[in-house]
Each structure stands twice: as structure tokens, then as C-alpha cells.
């Protein structure tokens, strides 16, 4: 829940873009108590609230995931650009409960994960460096950098809350921030995750590919992150979990389609902000 207030003189409010028109069912995961996943000295009892994210019995009955989504529905995606007036370009992106803000320097806030971890020993520097390198290699050949000779474009990312689709959210936030900064690029690079309901060894013919996994699903199921440049051109594909090779094509197709949906949402945000800027400029 979010509450806004202004003191003294009325000031500018943060405007919310239109929510993604695709996800009609409310997509917030049931709010698990933040400490429920702590492995060390866990004095709690594991109640049935913390169920397996893809309990096969319940999924095949209603084809609904734990948060009520179907296989091809995205989580709620909200984004804003030009959030930081002090930076050249900035954006704020939420994919479900994963939130990232941009002004490839990645910082993970201590409160981002389920356990509170300080950056140093936290997510492991290797994972962060890998994310940084991936994003750097994605954008370097894509942007028109020949227009900025002898300069560096720095993307500083802060992870505020990680709940799955981390790389995808970071790539989407970076795209928006680069647009907000006015750095020319030929198209949007948008990213999304896709997974499969079948685990590694099962020969499940009816396994559905899933779109946009949250953290619980990512820990249990094979998934991949895909980013596309135009309708069909894949620029990033990261898969770190094992999966039967026959499933990969289905996941890839679903992921590319999800990227298309994300592109429509982000484009809407950019256009709306542009219209507002034009209106404010009218005398």
C-alpha cells in the first residue's frame, strides 16, 4: 500500500502510469511474513502457508499458480521515468514485487532479499559481477555510442526488492533510464523470464511453459531469462537451471511473447511521460 502526502505548498505528485492492461487478476503474491524463509535458527513452525510454489496437484486442477495467475500472464508491471531530477536519466520499475531503480554499477540494498544481507558478503560478488557484465554487453553494441565519443555512459542500478526476474527487471529499468536520459537507440530492449512446470526428470508431456516467474517459482522450476531487441531478435538469453531440451523451445517462444507484452507497457509509459512534458511546456 502506498500513501502520499505533501507538506506546506502543494508540490508535484508522482504520477502513476496505466497499469499493464494484460494482467486482469490481481497479481500480488500472498504477503509471506518476511522472516519465514530464514534457514538459520528458525524458531517458527513451517505452517502450510509456505507451500510449494507449484504443487503439481493444485496446478493441474485449476491451472492457476499460487498467486492466481495463469501460465501466460505477467505480474503487475509498473514503471516511471525521470524520477530523479538530479540525474540525466532515471527510472523506477516494478515487476510484481521486484523493484529496481536506475540512475553497470549494481548495488543490492540490505533489505532486498528475504534475509537481511549487507552487500559485501551478501548475494556474492560473482553473481553481481555477472549481472553487471551481462547488462553491459547487452547495451554496448545496441546504443548509438558513436554519438558520444570519449565518454562513458554509467548505469547505476539499485535493487530494492528482489522477488524473481531480477535480470529482466534490471534490463527493463536500464532501457527506460537510457530513454529518459535521451541516449539514442534503435529500439527498446525488453526482457522477461519464462519457465516450465515440469521438473528436470519427469516426462510430463502436458507440461506448460510459464511466463514471468516469482522467487518461489524460480527456486523450484527451470527457467530462462530472455531479452529481445525487436519483435523477434533475441539479444540476451540466460539459463542457469537444468531442463529437458524439448521444453526449451516452448519456454523461449513464451518468453519472446512476454517481451512483446512488456515492450507495449514500457512504450506506453514513455509516450505518456512525453505527452505530459509537452503539456507542461505549453504556456
Amino acid at each position, binding site marked *: *500500500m*502506498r*500513501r*502520499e*502526502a*505533501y*507538506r*506546506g*505548498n*502543494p*508540490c*508535484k*505528485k*508522482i504520477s502513476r502510469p496505466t497499469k499493464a492492461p494484460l494482467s486482469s487478476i490481481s497479481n*500480488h503474491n500472498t*504477503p*509471506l*511474513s*518476511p*522472516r*519465514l524463509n*530464514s534457514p538459520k*535458527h528458525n*524458531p*517458527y*513452525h513451517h*505452517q502450510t*502457508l509456505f507451500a510449494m510454489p507449484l504443487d503439481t496437484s493444485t496446478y493441474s486442477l485449476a491451472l492457476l499458480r499460487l498467486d492466481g495467475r495463469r501460465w501466460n500472464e505477467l505480474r503487475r508491471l509498473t514503471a516511471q521515468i525521470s*524520477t*530523479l*531530477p*538530479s*540525474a540525466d536519466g532515471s527510472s523506477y520499475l516494478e515487476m510484481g*514485487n521486484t*523493484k529496481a*531503480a536506475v*540512475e553497470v554499477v549494481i*548495488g543490492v*540494498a*540490505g*533489505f*532486498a*532479499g*528475504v*534475509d*537481511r544481507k*549487507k552487500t*559485501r558478503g551478501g548475494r556474492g560478488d560473482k553473481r553481481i559481477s555477472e549481472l553487471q557484465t551481462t547488462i553491459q554487453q547487452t547495451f554496448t553494441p545496441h546504443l548509438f555510442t558513436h554519438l558520444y565519443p570519449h565518454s562513458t555512459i554509467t548505469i*547505476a542500478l*539499485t535493487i*530494492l*526488492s*528482489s*522477488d524473481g526476474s531480477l535480470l529482466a527487471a534490471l534490463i527493463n529499468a536500464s532501457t527506460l533510464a537510457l530513454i529518459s536520459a535521451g541516449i539514442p537507440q534503435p529500439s527498446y530492449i525488453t526482457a522477461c523470464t519464462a519457465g516450465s512446470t515440469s521438473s528436470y526428470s519427469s516426462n510430463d508431456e502436458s507440461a506448460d511453459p510459464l511466463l514471468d516467474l516469482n522467487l518461489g517459482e524460480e527456486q523450484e522450476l527451470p527457467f530462462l531469462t530472455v531479452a529481445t531487441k525487436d519483435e523477434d531478435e533475441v539479444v540476451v538469453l540466460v539459463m542457469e537451471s537444468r531442463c529437458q531440451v524439448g521444453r526449451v523451445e516452448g519456454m523461449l517462444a513464451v518468453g519472446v511473447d512476454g517481451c512483446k507484452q512488456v515492450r507495449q507497457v514500457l512504450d506506453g509509459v514513455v509516450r505518456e511521460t512525453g505527452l505530459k512534458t509537452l503539456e507542461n511546456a505549453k504556456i
Partner: protein
Amino acid sequence: MAPSSATQQVLLSPAELSYLHTSLALNPPIRPDGRAPTQFRPLIAECDILPGTNGSARICFADGTEAIVGIKAEVERSRPSYSNTSQDTSPTENDEEEDEDDRTEEKESMEKKGRNEWVEVSVEIPGFRDEDSMPVFLSAMLSEALLADGEFTGRLWINGRFHWKLYLDILLLSQPLSYPLPLLSLTTHLALLSTRLPKLKSEGDEDPMFDDDWDASIYLFPRNSKIYTRPPVTLLVMAVKGNIIFDPSKEELAVAEVVLAVSIAERPRIGERTSKERDLRLLAVRTIDPPSRLTHPGVPDAINTATGGAAVNSIEEATSRREVTEEEGVWQPPRGGAKRKLIAEMIRKVLEKGGVAEEVLDGLDAVELG
């Protein structure tokens, strides 16, 4: 003294600095943006923005600085305390029920004391490493204000063997354009107000068990409890020649003679707040090194060859000559400290009824309580 030189330097010429200083020294002072001396700039505040935390808040100031605070709590085993807790509670002859209840309550409230190490504050500022002086000073000042009343840590007590460890992670998202202390303090206040802890289901000293229903969780600073308390707030106050100015922008700080960081809180009160007034208590006062000391001084006519003066041979001579001249309109970095009466007046102005502190606390309450 806390360093403020670490924030970005304001690049103003001596003439501009002198102009600013003169207009702030007038009676009433004229501020560059036309505000009254006690008027704050508008800001945007929201809380409960991060679902994975126990409490969170975000505040954006009008000059573009932005901060996010996330609070997480973890159950931790308490270290056994070896203090002498034996009390002579020999039952008296007339064992009224009231007396016994009082005695057990007293014993409980004495045992419920917390320890300062149960709260960990960490400040992250872009461009600074964790060991640099600025983040260390800021986190020390914020935790000092929080732990000053000695009763906050008592809320983190679960039972004799376990307690909550509270981690306050304060992120400054933008570059530190001006001294970030008031921004971080207000954001921390809001985040603490929105912090909730799971409700305890177990009893006594057994392993703690909590209610899985997040809606049953209890606020760290309960709204409708018998005892009304609020977390502290730290404000920046500056003075120029007897004029006391609140919420200084970075240009105003560049010509300040005295800068104080004042931490205030409300006294815990039994029962609901009956009147609109708050009972404020001063927790800490710290002097901040004003950035005006690092500005370039103006060159008086006597040593400026362009105006017929004689050039000086060395920097020392220039400095000593400048110390003698006290010309109106020539900017000199402020030397020396502030008068005691001025400091007392600044503190009094912060705490006065219907003044700045009450306005700030009212505004923050309105954000969290809707």
C-alpha cells in the same frame, strides 16, 4: 565535528557569497527562494513501499535528493546477562492481589530492558565507501538519536532468551547535493512508524512462535496503545548574524555562520493525545562544520592591484592583511564560533510550541496514518 565538506562544493564567487550573506543578515532575512525563515520546502513522502521489509519509506526533497529506508528484523538469541536480578520480594502479611500484580509487572518491566547492540544502522551514500567518514558519522548520529531515550530497545524484547535485531538500511539514492542528514532522519522516522513485527504466540521463555497472519502483526510504534511514543527526528538549523533559518538549501549553507543538527523526540505520554500540542524533548545537539569555511574569500581593494592597492608577496601576508580589514560587502569565511545565547536561542526556537518541530511531526504523522 561532523564533516560537511564531503558534499559537493557550491561554486559561488565571493561577490555572490557576500550578496547572499547580506540578504540573510537583514531583518527579516530575505532567502533566495523567498521562503519565510521557518518555512520548509515541499516534499514527497510515501511509506510501505517495499513488501519484503518490515517497514520502509521514501522521501524526495524539492532539490532532487531522494532517500529510501528499509527496516528488517531478525530473531536473535540473547546473550545471558550476568547482572544481579535477585530482588527481595518476600511476600508481605497482607497479600492483596493488587500488590502481587504490581510486583510482577515491575519485575517484567525491569527485565524488558534492551541493549543498544540490538539496533544496527547502516547508511549508504553513492560515491562513498562504507568506511568513509560521512556515512559513519551520519549513521552514528541517527542511531544516537534513536537510542537516546533508552526505552526503544525494550520494544525488541521477546523473552528472556530471544530478542529482535533491527537492521535499518538507509540508502541515499541521489548524489549528496546538500547535507543529507535531515532527509535521512525524516525517512528513518517514517520507516520506523510503518514497521511491524509479527505477533508473538508463544509464552514465557520457550522458543518464540509467531502468528503467520501478517495482518495480525503489531506496529513497532503502536497507534492506539496506552503509551504514546514516536521515533525521533533530526533537523538542520542555521544562523546568520542572529537570524535563525530552517531547512537551509545548499546555497544558504554556503554562507552560514553556525549550523546545528538538533534531534528531538516526543516524551512518552500515557493515554491519547488530548491537546494539539506535543511534549517535545531535546535528545541531541551537534555542530556541523559549515561549508562556508571552505569558500574563497574576497579580495579587498587594498591588496588588489586593479584597484590601486599593492599586491602581496605571499599567502600568509594576504591572510594577515585580510584579517585586519573588515569591509562591508567583502566576503570572508566566518571565523570563530557562535555565541552561547545564539545557540540557546536556536534550540529554543526548534522546541517552541506551535513551531517548526511540531509542524514536521504533524506532517510525518499525516503520511503514515493516512
